[in-house]
């Protein structure tokens, strides 16, 4: 199936490497805008409403219908704030960190097959190493957090940055290993191919066909993946790099105004990217009945967003040493066990 870039190129008659570049640029702008709409506009509003529902409150309801116009007010408020840069901040690093965080998540979306809308396939690029690429770019986020934490010249930021590294290293490995167990089934790293292989029916019960989504084929891996993903995006019970009440706000303590917005945005984008990876690898990507693929894809990543907010409202945070212990002694062992078992099953029966 033609990628979004190809579609744009052929529609506008762009040819050659230059044409593909321009087409890719246009496509990326469109996809990026959609994502920013999710994360910067709908995200904070939805977060308020969801958290309020969990905690017996009403949340925003005065500005516009359902308080939707609070988004505008929020944007104006955040952007009009003074940008305070602490004395002794390590300048280029301090400025780069927020942008890098948001960029690393946006880059990940380049290869995610987001389904089709009006017959147009919304996937910017479809390299054969798609899965590896996604994990590689999304882990750049860790560097951004360390940069921000270290460059802020603040002890709380430093602690937060260090916590972020410790946490991401501990949870990146189980995350990738669990995804690798899916690759054993598919035999490919190409994301469109992984999605395609999940469209086959797994079994049929009373006329309802259950598709071969890897969440159904290997639910154990799916649960592991979700848990590791939760740590990867830094949400409860694994929100220790931020940990308000302990280290104030961790790596973002000293960030204000537009830099803070970028950090915030980056975090939301990472949640959505985490949801997108989970949807692509385990939930059949954009697959679903009746509605167009892109709508299903949107529903799936929002479901993951809802899950993170639910966890945030209901689950306490673990301690840093406990987190590392769970990561290295629990998740890592389990994900290796999962990988080996899957390998044995795939080798013996398929």
């Amino acid at each position, binding site marked *: 199936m033609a990628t979004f870039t190809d579609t744009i190129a052929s529609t506008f008659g762009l040819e050659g490497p230059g044409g593909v570049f321009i087409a890719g640029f246009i496509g990326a702008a469109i996809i990026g805008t959609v994502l920013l709409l999710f994360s910067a506009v709908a995200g904070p509003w939805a977060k308020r409403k969801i958290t309020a529902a*969990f*905690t*017996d*409150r009403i949340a925003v309801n005065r500005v516009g219908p359902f308080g939707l116009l609070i988004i505008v007010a929020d944007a104006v408020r955040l952007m009009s704030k003074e940008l305070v840069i602490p004395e002794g901040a390590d300048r280029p690093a301090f400025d780069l960190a927020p942008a890098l965080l948001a960029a690393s998540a946006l880059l990940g979306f380049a290869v995610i097959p987001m389904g089709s809308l009006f017959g147009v396939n919304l996937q910017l690029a479809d390299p054969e190493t798609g899965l590896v690429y996604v994990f590689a770019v999304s882990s750049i986020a860790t560097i951004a957090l360390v940069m921000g934490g270290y460059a802020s010249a603040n*002890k*709380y930021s430093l*602690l937060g940055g260090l916590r972020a590294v410790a946490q991401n290293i501990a949870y990146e490995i189980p995350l990738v290993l669990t995804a690798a167990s899916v690759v054993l089934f598919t035999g490919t790293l190409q994301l469109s191919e992984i999605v395609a292989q999940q469209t086959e029916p797994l079994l049929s019960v009373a006329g309802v066909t259950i598709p071969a989504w890897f969440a159904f084929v290997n639910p154990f891996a799916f649960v592991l993946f979700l848990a590791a993903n939760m740590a990867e995006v830094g949400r*409860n*019970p694994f*929100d*220790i790099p931020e*940990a*308000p*009440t*302990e*280290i*104030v706000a961790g790596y973002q303590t000293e960030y204000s105004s537009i830099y803070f917005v970028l950090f915030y945005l980056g975090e939301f984008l990472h949640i959505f990217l985490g949801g997108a990876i989970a949807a692509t690898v385990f939930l059949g990507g954009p697959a679903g009945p009746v509605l167009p693929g892109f709508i299903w894809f949107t529903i799936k990543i929002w479901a993951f967003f809802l899950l993170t907010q639910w966890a*945030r*409202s*209901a*689950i*306490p*945070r*673990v*301690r*840093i*040493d*406990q987190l590392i212990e769970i990561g290295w002694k629990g998740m890592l062992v389990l994900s290796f066990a999962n990988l080996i078992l899957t390998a044995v099953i795939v080798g013996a029966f398929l």
Partner: protein
Amino acid sequence: MSTQKDPDDEATDAETGTDYESLLGDAYLGDDEFVNGDGVVVRADAVADVVQTLRDEAGYDHLSAVTAQQYEDRYESIYHLKRYDDPTDRVNVVVPTAASDPRSQSAANVFRTADWHEREAYDLVGVNYEDHPDLRRILLPETWQGHPMSRDYNQTKPQIVTLESHRNPLEAHHQEEESDTMFLNIGPHHPATHGVLHLETVLDGEQVADVEPDIGYLHRCEEQMAEHGTYRYQIMPYPDRWDYASAGILNEWAYARAAEELADIEVPEYAQVMRTMSAELCRIAAHTLAVGTFALDIYGDFTAIFMYAMRDREVIQKILEELTGQRMMFNYFRLGGVVWDLPEPRDEFFELTRDFLEELPERLEEYHDLISSNEIFQLRCVDTGVLPADVAKDYGVTGPVARASGIDYDLRRDDPYGYYDQLDWDVVTDDGADNYSRLLVRLQEVEESAKIIEQCLDLLEDWPEDDRTIQSNVPRTLKPEADKEVYSAVEAAKGELGIYIRADGTDKPGRFKIRSPCFSNLQSLPEMAEGEYVPDLVAALGSLDIILGEVDR
């Protein structure tokens, strides 16, 4: 040694008491008279020996407070000692020192809790304690000039100290080249300090190597303000401002009890029931807030459990508003009773309160579902912030914190006042001594308080209409005899809230000293937190449930 409990006539203790002269040897100078309890005057250079003898040989293992004051011809430090197993057995060790050079031996090496209390006495009154491990100001800034509660203090002296000469808060902790620890200021502005508390923390990686609470940011001269108010009306509003997190009525009771004992005022039974009921409502409100904010420290965000706690507290706030006319600053007690009866129509008030009590078990069930039976929560709280019973006693820890360390000490039962001794309820204790136990104790105490309120409501409903006396006859101007002294305490939300009053023959107290439970409890924080991780330090602080308004006064 008297172990006899006789709450109706507490003054008998003085007569049946110990033979202090033979017990204390040549440190003994004479007896002093206190309204409830013994008083013994001792030599200033033998304080440590005296309190040690009293603790080890006579069993006075609880140093409630240290009061310092200045007379015309001398300074005086009073060590208020009692026993954890029988708080009605009290002895006040009076240590006079010369007016020209007030030097007195420190008791901090015998009772750890004396450390902070003596620092406060030094800070405000100006008595120098020799052999004190770390005698410096505690409530006022390091740069303060003079001792504001001494008689020769110049009230008009400006206290503005320029920024240059301000002590650098990091000075003493400046990192050495070789050191691999990090000094971290937690607070005074930090999400977990529950007010303005400053923790000077030394971290080794993520572990706490050393922590020292720095208090005084909320010092409002409450003692001095009380000394400038008349007994009858002007002091009562102040207690609401000590532990301001919904525990106002419990604080008011501390003052009411001390002043009533001092001036020998009877309280009608009906008023006692009203007092008991309203005080327990306050206790529930204070404990739900404590549980909510503790959960906030563990969860790290304003999550469901915090909001649930606030929601339930709000209902009590509403009930208290109906009763007292105020949500927080109740000013409901009067000497000799309460200010007014239940709001009319009484039935509506009973219904409102009973509805709340009916729903409470369900709410508590929800709390247990969400927090105490949550595995991750247990992972965080069980066996962290451990405070063993003997250490707790050394620090004069009281209230839910002491009861969670297995110390069976509750003044409502052990030193009965109000209507408590005629109601059916239990003192909750737990042997865990950790953060988790402190949470459980608070949650169970809410249940016990609900039981007390229920019984009070039954009593109030059936009370004959012509016998509803809410206040006894108290003279408009109270002038207790000069040099009459009393130290008496009640079980407030956070523990033993004691008041020492010395009358000087006028209608205002000569000395008014507040023994804050939070003050003593907070001092034990380093014991709980050192060697633990930063999150456990925060959890331990949350489980102590301090209110800075009461710590700093």
